[in-house]
């Protein structure tokens, strides 16, 4: 550079800041447009030139989503399905991840590779047999009809994350637990899981988001209004003659909120560093 120190806003004019700004704008623009449009009236929605700030500001789209289109039911369904499936994935994922990371067992590698292959399976490939299976079980249009497949499909990835996380926890921690008289389950609960919290949060957020946004299975398995989840619910807004964009946008904004809150709360937890001080600095 020319060696001169830049002051004021001039110091922000360099390649890094410009690139960051462009990427930030490209990423945030659709979200901004979604939020802004959800507060527009149908007329303002189609205005030319487009309005970058809604005028007048209207909350009609929000009330319409909840009153006219049962969005509250979809929201409740999504919460039930995503929360239960995530909880199950974390319970089974922790147990399986711990076992694969620590216990001496044959066929560990094969198990891990199989899990990886399963997690890469496109859901379109399994949807037909899954539909038939669930129909035979009488699970179409039920919570468990989504919870069980969601758990199954998200488990492999969670096991991978948790296993890798647990591999990083010093073995001496468990040995100290054994010497201190803790049972294997107690060691897992009191020593390993608190240390694996970042891994648990990462797997949990990933799984919750996947369940929250899943469309294909939700559409195929639950087609009754009482069991529809948000993505399917929003997609069926309107009539063949009318697409209520404003309402769809409003519902989408509400749908983004839980995921946003989750990420904001757990962001600092996901950052590793919990293990500091356990062993030599």
């Amino acid at each position, binding site marked *: 550079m020319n060696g001169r120190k830049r002051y004021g806003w001039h110091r922000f004019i360099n390649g890094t800041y410009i690139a960051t700004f462009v990427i930030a704008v490209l990423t945030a623009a659709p979200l901004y447009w979604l939020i802004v449009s959800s507060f527009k009236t149908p007329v303002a929605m189609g205005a030319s030139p487009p309005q970058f700030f809604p005028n007048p500001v209207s909350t009609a789209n929000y009330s319409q989503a909840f009153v006219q289109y049962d969005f509250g039911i979809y929201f409740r369904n999504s919460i039930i399905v995503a929360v239960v499936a995530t909880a199950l994935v974390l319970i089974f994922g922790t147990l399986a991840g711990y076992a694969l990371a620590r216990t001496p067992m044959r066929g560990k590698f094969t198990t891990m590779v199989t899990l990886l292959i399963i997690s890469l399976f496109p859901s379109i490939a399994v949807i037909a047999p899954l539909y038939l299976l669930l129909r035979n079980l009488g699970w179409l249009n039920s919570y468990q009809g989504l919870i069980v497949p969601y758990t199954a499909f998200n488990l492999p990835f969670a096991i991978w994350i948790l296993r890798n996380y647990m591999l990083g926890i010093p073995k001496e921690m468990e040995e100290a637990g*054994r*010497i201190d*008289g803790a049972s294997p389950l107690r060691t897992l609960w009191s020593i390993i899981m608190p240390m694996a919290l970042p891994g648990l949060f990462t797997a949990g957020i990933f799984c919750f988001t996947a369940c929250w946004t899943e469309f294909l299975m939700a559409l195929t398995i639950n087609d009754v209004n009482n069991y529809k989840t948000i993505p399917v619910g929003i997609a069926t807004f309107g009539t063949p003659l009318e697409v209520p964009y404003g309402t769809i946008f409003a519902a989408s904004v509400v749908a983004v909120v839980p995921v946003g809150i989750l990420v904001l709360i757990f962001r600092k937890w996901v950052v590793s560093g919990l293990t500091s001080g356990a062993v030599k600095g």
Partner: protein
Amino acid sequence: MAPVDMENLNKVYENGFRAVKDLSLDVADGEFMVLVGPSGCGKTTTLRMVAGLEDITSGDLLIGGKRVNDESPKQRDIAMVFQNYALYPHMTVRENMAFPLKMEKMPKDEINKKVNDASEILGLNDLLNNKPGQLSGGQRQRVAMGRAIVRQPTVFLMDEPLSNLDAKLRVQMRAEVHRIQRHLGVSTIYVTHDQVEAMTMGDRICVIRDGTVQQVDHPQTVYGNPVNIFVAGFIGSPSMNLYDATVGEGAKSLKLGSQEIDLPDTVLMRSPALRSYAGKDVTVGLRPENLPAEAPDKTGPRLVGDVSLVEALGSELQVHFTIDANRVLPEGAVGSDEAAAIGRGEGVAIVSPKTQVKAGEKLTFAVDIDDMQFFDRATGLAIRE
């Protein structure tokens, strides 16, 4: 408090590697036993077998006279301090120390009392609400000790607990650990590869090599009368100068390269077996401190060496010298890097700091013949009776 008896312990891993071979060792009630040896010699494996963290392939392990081979670590009533401390990072110091007591389902009041007592002994009172991440290395070490002593176990096991501390702190903690062990009087098995720790802390030390016990005795005895060439080379820093030599007629003299040293009768009285080595090759060992520098005209056994390096340590000078005899480096006792650094015929002498000597000069050393060690060239065993 209880004695620990190991009888013919063996550890064979699944891949066939035999880490511990027929190891027998008795640790008396309240004794501080140090297991010492080069890395990979099986000392940590032995400790882990006592702890119950490693299965015993064969042999018997008795704690307090009771066979505990198949008992869990918890049932053995032992406490262990790990090399990397293994403190629970999400728990405070108090919770860390209380954890083993909580596992025993002890009432809360009693737990608090015991934790307070232990933290008093270790000077941890002000740190009880801190988490391990907020502590210094020495403090973490103390907490690890605290977690061990709070249970008042029958045996302490320590796996190189001081190796992660810096040199100064290590000296302090060495004394501290020793003091606590004396105070509590609990039988202790302490693993280290640091022979200074072994020498200063142990009531007895057990030198291990390749999974077998070489010598078990008081530190000073092991230092002064090593049973074989491995122990001689391993214990002591700088290590013992070991040279090939030939015993003269009637075991009256010793030929070290081109130099000849007279052997007085006292040597034969101490090591009568040396008589049968007359005219044969042996290995002799001389501790660096048994080679004081002397004026060239003095009488008595002497050795002249070419000085290659002088290291001033304040209280003493370490003089590296060369003679024309073959230097012996016992396998395993000296690290390969160290072995590569020692030239043919090179030895070390510790002399008074007042000695005037420079590299490149010749220096005459008086040989403290009574402390000279003799080893059989073939078996490596000490030549004594």
